[in-house]
């Protein structure tokens, strides 16, 4: 497992592009690997034949672990083959017992047996792990043959918050009991459950989930957030969008509301360069390029989560270019994942839940940005236009801001500029 980014400590194989026996040349794509930041292509460093694939799809291994074996084409010599232990497959061990139907007599604690099978653990390490709710499967033992020893547990317990995991074990234990009780009295026919019975389960964090957890906690804990909300008359923009999409239908262009908002935000940023800034500890960093990030939710089958695609120099780009880039980023993010470059260097982020009918929400700033715009749906509602009650589309949007960089009045001025752009969309065309 090569180190594909500075902070990468482990990687997950998402897809193998090669099979055992395939001949490959240097530069050929061998696999897609999910790192802590992005999905990257692993290219072959050498020519050769794939002799073994050691780490399977979906398995996460540490940097430096042998994931496959490439041999010179002329040396199909078995002796060259060097088998290196891959970490035990967590999922396999857990799935085995998870599906077992509950039996009349109290079943043995499921977690214990499945989690420790095949592991080398010293007795005291096993006891400490139990006391602290540590999952032995997640530990690489430092003793002989990978034996998990006292020191490994103590280091882990010292470094992590232990209460959460301990609480989980307790819950799991009592859960097992309840199941046994209800099934041990066959005379009572319980009502069919409304929804399928869901077992308690634990899933290790994906790389992305780890990064989300880490970065957003950091953001929410260190950035003094505050929010400013404004409503926008969206009728002119919707009307223009309809017109443009009709007239451009044959060219394949289909502008979304979000594409307009990207351009609006970028132009408003150009008018208020103090928004295009980051807090630098003892200084404020003002960025030159206006790079608008768009939050993209990923489908559950790709593990869920979200990424922020970067539309660079968005203030310099036409609606059409923005639309194309935005569509490209969304599709690629959902299908194969974005590269580090495609996510880097944003200076402002837009998160849009309007398509789900959400009217209003607040977002957490995406560091090192100083602001994020949470966009709600354009809702048809009674509005007052020129003193008259009318029916129109209104959209609410809420800015979350870093008060260390942007004060309330500055935020208000920015929203005012944004409002002018959104409600007078002709200016977006020129």
């Amino acid at each position, binding site marked *: 497992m090569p180190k594909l980014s500075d902070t990468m400590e482990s990687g997950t194989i998402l897809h193998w592009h090669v099979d055992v026996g395939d001949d490959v040349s240097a530069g050929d794509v061998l696999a897609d690997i999910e790192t802590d930041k992005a999905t990257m292509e692993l290219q072959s460093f050498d020519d050769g034949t794939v002799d073994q694939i050691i780490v399977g799809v979906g398995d996460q291994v540490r940097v430096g672990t042998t994931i496959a074996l490439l041999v010179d084409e002329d040396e199909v010599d078995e002796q060259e083959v060097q088998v290196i232990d891959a970490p035990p497959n967590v999922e396999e061990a857990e799935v085995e017992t998870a599906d077992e139907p509950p039996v009349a007599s109290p079943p043995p604690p499921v977690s214990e047996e499945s989690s420790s099978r095949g592991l080398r653990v*010293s*007795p*005291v*390490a096993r*006891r400490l792990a139990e006391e602290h709710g540590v999952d032995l499967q997640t530990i690489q033992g430092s003793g*002989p043959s990978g034996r998990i020893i006292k*020191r490994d547990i103590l280091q882990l317990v010292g470094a992590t918050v232990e209460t959460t995991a301990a609480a989980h074990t307790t819950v799991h234990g009592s859960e097992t009991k309840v199941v046994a009780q209800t099934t041990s009295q066959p005379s009572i026919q319980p009502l069919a459950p409304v929804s399928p019975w869901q077992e308690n389960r634990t899933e290790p964090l994906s790389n992305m989930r780890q990064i989300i957890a880490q970065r957003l906690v950091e953001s929410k804990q260190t950035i003094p957030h505050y929010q400013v909300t404004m409503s926008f008359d969206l009728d002119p923009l919707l009307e223009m969008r309809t017109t443009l999409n009709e007239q451009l239908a044959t060219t394949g262009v289909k502008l979304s509301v979000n594409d307009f908002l990207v351009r609006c935000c970028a132009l408003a940023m150009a008018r208020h360069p103090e928004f295009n800034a980051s807090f630098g500890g003892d200084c404020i960093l003002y960025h030159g390029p206006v790079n608008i990030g768009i939050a993209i939710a990923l489908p559950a089958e790709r593990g869920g989560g979200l990424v922020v695609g970067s539309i660079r120099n968005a203030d310099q780009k036409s609606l059409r270019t923005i639309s194309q880039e935005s569509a490209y980023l969304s599709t690629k993010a959902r299908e194969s994942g974005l590269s580090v470059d495609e996510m880097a260097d944003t200076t402002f982020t837009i998160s849009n839940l309007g398509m789900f009918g959400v009217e209003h929400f607040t977002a957490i700033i995406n560091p090192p940005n100083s602001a994020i715009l949470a966009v709600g749906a354009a809702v048809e509602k009674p509005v007052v236009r020129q003193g008259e009650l009318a029916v129109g589309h209104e959209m609410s949007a809420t800015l979350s801001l870093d008060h260390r960089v942007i004060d309330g009045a500055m935020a208000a001025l920015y929203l005012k500029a944004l409002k002018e752009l959104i409600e007078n969309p002709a200016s977006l065309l020129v």
Partner: protein
Amino acid sequence: MTVATNNRVIEFRDALREAMSEEMRNDKRVFLLGEEVAQYNGAYKVSKGMLDEFGPKRVIDTPISESGFSGMAIGAAMRGLRPIVEFMSWSFSLVAADPILNNAAKMLYMSGGQFGCPIVFRGNDGAGGQLASTHSWCVESMYANVPGLKMAIPYDAYDAKGLLKSAIQDDNPVFFLESERLLSTTCHVPEEEYTIPFGKALIRRQGTDCTIIGFGRPLHFCLEAAEELAREGISCEVIDGRTIRPLDIDTMAASVTKTSACVVVDQSWPFASVGSEIASQLHAICFEALDNHVHRVHSDDVPTPYAYNLEQAYLPNKRKICEAVRSATYNA
């Protein structure tokens, strides 16, 4: 030689003599017999001056016939006396195996409680230094296997006096294992009478990372090793077992429960030994507390070599103990 102060320091051999003399003054049934114990003042001068004080009826020179004088002493013990038998070396006790194991140890049982055997067998045990295979016996593992006897191995002069007095006062046969290499070592020994109860181990050094258990002379190397290991950041608790039968497994287990690691140092051979017995008991009692199996340091599984360098390499020593502790604590 002896000075009446609270800080009196005497040799191990003096402490042994003091214990025997005090008990002989207190109890007319106690007497000493063995090769050269009387007129020659003892092969190792342990009984120096005792003939003069107690006379030839209570300090008796014997022929070179361990089987004979051991059997005679056992008979005396069965009839109500409290003999102390000195073996010049425990290596020579082998020819008396039948009386000391078959008679002394089993008498109370076989006589249905009619005859006890309040006797002390004492002498040098272990390698004295280039005495070669037949005269360097460590008999503790072999003899401790036999039910019905008690066994003590003192480490310093203080314990030598206290444990030997307890041995003489005990109503059971006691095998008292001294070391020629320790006879000249000194420490503070009170002039007043005191006894040290059997079955009470002594923590000679406190530590947190690994328990080292030893008896007698190897404790010296255990303490040396603990000192060296402390410089490496490994904190060792050194336990002096003091008596093998009864064995203070509770103190040992409490320490191992604290440290999670243990090295047993036993100068006898490894197979079916005191060391393997302690390891087995600790595995049973402290299983949940152990971070590694109990490690053992013994004399190597060969007859004792004569050559100086080979003998040093063969015996438990600081190097072997350090290596075992590093391994037991995963610092190898």
